[in-house]
């Protein structure tokens, strides 16, 4: 039997300890945000993997399309001058 209305999908982000960022660890289904938090606690932090959880309904995430990776990311590829190694300095210069 299928329910009239299925529980929506939520993306789960967990901060493993203070000082670190939240990281995406998977998704789950829940009726609302509170339930998503509780389910995330049981599914993704059974062994102290987290001190903080974010849940976001999957439909609210906008993702870039890999087909556009050229336009999006290639412009950064030829900008070597954004890296410290681009600059020629004499070996005698210290702490730079």
């Amino acid at each position, binding site marked *: *039997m*299928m*329910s*009239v*209305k*299925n*529980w929506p*999908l939520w993306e789960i982000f967990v901060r493993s300890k203070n000082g670190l960022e939240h990281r995406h*660890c*998977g*998704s*789950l*289904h829940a*009726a*609302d945000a509170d*339930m998503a938090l509780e389910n995330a606690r*049981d*599914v993704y932090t*059974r*062994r102290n993997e987290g001190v903080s959880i974010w849940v976001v309904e999957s439909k609210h995430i906008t*993702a870039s*399309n*890999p*087909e556009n990776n050229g336009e999006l990311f290639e412009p950064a590829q030829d900008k070597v001058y954004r890296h410290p190694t681009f600059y020629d300095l004499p070996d005698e210069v210290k702490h730079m």
Partner: protein
Amino acid sequence: MSEDQIKSLEKEFEARIARDEKIEPKDWMPEKYRETHIRQMSQHAHSEIVGMLPEGNWITRAPSLRRKVALLAKVQDEAGHGLYLYSATETLGASREELYDQLHTGKAKYSSIFNYPTLTWADMGAIGWLVDGAAIINQVPLCNTSYGPYARAMIRVCKEESFHQRQGFEIMLKLANGTEEQKEMAQDALNRWWWPSLMMLGPTDDKSVHTAQSMKWKLKRKTNDELRQQFIDQTVPQADLIGLTIPDPALKWNEERGSYDFGEIDWDEFWQVVKGHGPMNKERMKARVGAWERGEWVRDAAMAYAEKAQNRKEKQAV
């Protein structure tokens, strides 16, 4: 897209995998890759879910609180494994409802090992030791598989599996060192679970249809026969250590191969169970479908409550 375009995309796709690059959900992929992954990953998820049933059967009858909390945690982990894997499968565009539906209507398969009954407490030991042991051998290579979400789920699963196997072996160890009856119980469980565990690693290489393609996509890194040999070679010394006898008179160390030779596997039995004629196939499906149906009103009520709360919030905002 023209056929030539697809051909060249496919070539580039295979090259990426050969270079050990990962494929992520929104990347272009051949339809066959998507289908094969949905099938394998969802079967894997179903196995974790149905796999809870034979052990769940013993939670209330665990012989001590220590054993009970361990078994409960183990079974809960298997639920978690099922959920990681369903969630990874959904990234390929299959919905959870459709996956459940395939399981509940018998369209999708799950590991046939779970169609055997758990008759005594020693079966909890044998399952953790042998069934989770064989599962680990199957799963470790998948931590490196080409599909990113699957590989990540498997890393999580593998981290959790080793406790499963150790708790099972500890049960066997305790029984094997116990009274005469306890030792017999352990031996009986080993006798019943040994051969199905060997079958769990899949048909022999000459009968296995998917191997070549699966190797290319890193859904498989070793053949079924190689995995089976690895399982036997690592398990026999463990049985020796606790004084139990592997129920195979043909089992013998082969000095030349540096491996154990072993007896004929009853593949007729395997195919009978796969086709639905195992001792517990009907029972497992009945339990699973029953749980799903009895939970329907709860799912509906949770949804109705969520909608009501949402409406209330919106009204207040006006």
